[in-house]
């Protein structure tokens, strides 16, 4: 006869309430683990998805994700000249915040190196990759931009031609993919008035210098657009992504490029480490510690519930002892209830969590490993939290059955 099950059946309402309560608490523990996992995965998602061997960034920076990096566009061609380099692509990445339909819209703008990269590698949930050099974009679903929707960024209007699922940056902002040219246009967009003022200032500086007097054509050029002036630098890119030929050792190529005085080079693993150790380390630790705290609280609450449940049947326990029940019968009664409470709480946590977590603004990822880990934690806290009840039950005298 399973005394634990019989007692639960007798006190079904209370046990159900206790189970739901413990389940909700475990759901929070599970959720914290999921948020932790989500932050980790989101942080390195882009590096993983892009699948390149080397990232070339501005010298002594940890770019392009951990900090701002600026490198010249022609770095692509220098990279291609290195023996063993298979492909080199421009990478433009920055975050903007605009207003769309009255709500703030944070977009991580990522430039695809048109025409070699049209976004075919992206996990499209709808639509298609880019098919033209301008005015098209692929947006992540978290940006809540519908297929075909038009959005004005800077002076241009872009049409959403594709959507992706779970393409977000390390801070949880959805990524939108443009061509590099469009991404730069968005990044370096300035109002017309600023352009006119800059040109006037440039003309004024020319007029005040001897060169301007000696070379009038220079003053004519000063009023032209920046792109037409060979002496002005072109807009810079964030990084260059390099893939290495399969037969070539990546570290050898990295060694050559790292010898250049103006850039730093990271492998994809190096980028992952920069992101995990640099950008999300504190958040990761904070959530990890909070999760430990919640687990301890769950254990204490479970312990109190089980202790109260034991107190409620202390007379029955004394009676069982009076009848000569061995200690393992009493221990089994309490331990089984603790395990049932923990196991059912875990089921409640998973069932409710699976429905609730997708509604969270950031990804909550429940991996099999984390679920197994939580199940082991629940097993441990079920056993430890039942110890107080077991201690009380073993201490009770059979005499109490007579009182």
């Amino acid at each position, binding site marked *: *006869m399973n*005394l634990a099950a*019989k*007692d639960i*059946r*007798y*006190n079904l309402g209370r046990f159900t309430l206790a189970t739901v309560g413990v389940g909700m608490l475990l759901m929070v523990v599970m959720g914290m683990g999921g948020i932790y996992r989500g932050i980790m995965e989101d942080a390195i998602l882009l590096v993983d998805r892009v699948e390149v061997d080397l990232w070339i960034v501005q010298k002594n920076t940890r770019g392009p994700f951990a900090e701002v990096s600026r490198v010249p566009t022609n770095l692509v061609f220098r990279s291609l000249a290195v023996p063993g380099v298979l492909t080199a692509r421009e990478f433009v990445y920055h975050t903007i915040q605009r207003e769309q339909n009255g709500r703030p819209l944070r977009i991580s703008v990522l430039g695809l190196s048109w025409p070699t990269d049209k976004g075919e590698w992206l996990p499209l949930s709808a639509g298609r990759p880019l098919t033209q050099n301008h005015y098209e974009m692929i947006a992540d679903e978290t940006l809540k931009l519908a297929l075909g929707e038009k959005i004005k960024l800077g002076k241009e209007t872009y049409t959403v031609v594709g959507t992706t699922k779970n393409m977000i940056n390390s801070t949880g902002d959805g990524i939108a993919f443009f061509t590099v040219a469009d991404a730069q246009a968005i990044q370096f967009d300035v109002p017309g008035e600023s352009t006119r003022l800059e040109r006037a200032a440039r003309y004024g500086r020319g007029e005040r210098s001897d060169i301007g007097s000696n070379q009038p054509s220079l003053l004519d050029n000063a009023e032209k657009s920046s792109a037409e002036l060979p002496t002005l630098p072109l807009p810079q890119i964030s990084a260059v992504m390099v893939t290495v030929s399969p037969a070539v050792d990546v570290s050898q190529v990295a060694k050559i490029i790292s010898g250049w005085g103006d850039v730093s080079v990271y492998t994809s693993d190096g980028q992952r480490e920069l992101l995990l150790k640099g950008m999300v380390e504190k958040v990761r630790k904070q959530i990890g510690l909070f999760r430990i705290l919640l687990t301890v609280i769950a254990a204490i609450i479970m312990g109190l519930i089980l202790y109260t449940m034991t107190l409620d*049947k202390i*007379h*029955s326990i004394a*009676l*069982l*002892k*009076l*009848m*000569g*029940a*061995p200690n393992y*019968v009493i221990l089994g009664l309490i331990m089984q209830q603790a395990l049932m409470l923990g196991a059912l709480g875990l089921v409640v946590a998973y069932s409710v969590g699976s429905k609730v977590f997708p509604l969270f603004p950031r990804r909550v990822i429940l991996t099999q490993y984390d679920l197994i880990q939580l199940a082991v934690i629940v097993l441990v806290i079920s056993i430890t939290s039942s110890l107080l009840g077991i201690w009380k039950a073993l201490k009770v*005298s*059979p*005499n109490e*059955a*007579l009182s």
Partner: protein
Amino acid sequence: MNKSVPSQYVIETEAITKIYGSGNTEVVAMRDASMQVEPGKVVALLGPSGSGKSTFLTAVGLINPPTSGRIIIQGKPILDGKNALVNLRSFRRQHIGFVFQKSNLIPFLSAIENVQVAMEINGLSPPAARKRAQELLDYLGVGDRANNSPSMLSGGQQQRVAVARALANHPSVILADEPTAALDSHRGRQVMELFAQVAHEQGAGVIVVTHDHRSLDIFDILYEMEDGILQKKTRETIS
């Protein structure tokens, strides 16, 4: 020294004394109480409240060991003063049945389960325990209420279930502490007759603590406890 010796008594107590506290707070609850009960005999233990009846019963029931004296059950020394000579809980499980003033049934078990659990913790298989539990309930006239929870049974029915539980493991000793206190006189007498029937049919020694003098004719032996002193009485000498 502790070996079993053939004995004509199922219960023997040899000058058992129970003292609570020490020094100035010392209280002697029971002094040199000796009793012998033959198999199949029903003993009434009478006496006013606080006289030490329950102390004697819990000592014989191996719940509350005496301070001194010996308790021998079925010829086997069990307690020598406070020293247990066997595993008391195990011995209690196999040889002693209890019935209390209140039925003391486990509330989360049905009537039949209350009887069944006593046998299961003694190692009987669940199907066999259930079968015997049903037989006992039938024997005691509450077989039709087997699946009812204790709260759905009347006081008399609960007490019959408690008796069934006490009989479950074929005990050689049945101890009852005012088992009829919560019952009307008719039901009370029925329960007392039940003890006598069980004692006679199963050869158990039964000690019943009671205040009810109307049922004294049912008992084979009478003892009276007063101020911790146990004395054998007859119907004529009982106070």
